[in-house]
């Protein structure tokens, strides 16, 4: 059983569409990070959210940390083919970084 559950696991959309990826847990995390990983590469950090209810925007990406610090979401507006990749949420708990299983996003032109 994953401590962090991501949904959906796979998402295939057309360029220009909006999408939301969810990261849920029954545990509280001191902070949560989102990474993006391209095939054959290591994950790259996109954002860290620390405060419950926090919202951070990174160009077309909006990240939200749940009020209870148990869940998070990533919203992408007007997706582009360059957004294709594996999106990973990771929670910091007890000094460890625990990853979700990832959401594989494919954006078709």
């Amino acid at each position: 059983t994953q401590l962090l559950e991501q949904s959906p696991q796979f998402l295939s959309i057309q360029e220009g569409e909006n999408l939301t990826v969810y990261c849920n847990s029954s545990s509280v995390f001191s902070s949560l990070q989102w990474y993006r990983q391209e095939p054959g590469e290591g994950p790259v950090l996109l954002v860290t959210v620390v405060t419950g209810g926090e919202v951070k925007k990174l160009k077309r990406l909006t990240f939200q940390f749940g009020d209870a610090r148990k869940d998070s979401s990533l919203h992408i507006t007007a997706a582009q083919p360059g957004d294709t990749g594996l999106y990973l949420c990771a929670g910091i708990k007890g000094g460890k970084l625990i990853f979700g299983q990832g959401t594989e996003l494919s954006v078709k032109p």
Partner: protein
Amino acid sequence: EAEVAQSPRYKITEKSQAVAFWCDPISGHATLYWYRQILGQGPELLVQFQDESVVDDSQLPKDRFSAERLKGVDSTLKIQPAELGDSAMYLCASTAGTGIAGELFFGEGSRLTVL
């Protein structure tokens, strides 16, 4: 731009053979991690080093896996003997400081295929 270096990028081996992966973290980064990522899943922590000391190896299968960071700089992860289920991407990451409150910088990984 400073990067985490890993080698080899790809390794194909037969089961029961020994394999070794090497990682050179970003200069000055005290904390080093080895993660294993099975295709289609998120990375799972195998071992964490603080300088040359092991901080957490609770998820490392110690009957066949070993890791060392003798001088507190580069690190080696060894598997002996390799099993079919060890096929995965082995990722090394480093971070400045003593914790993981900040950003983990990952290498490109070492892809292992066990036949």
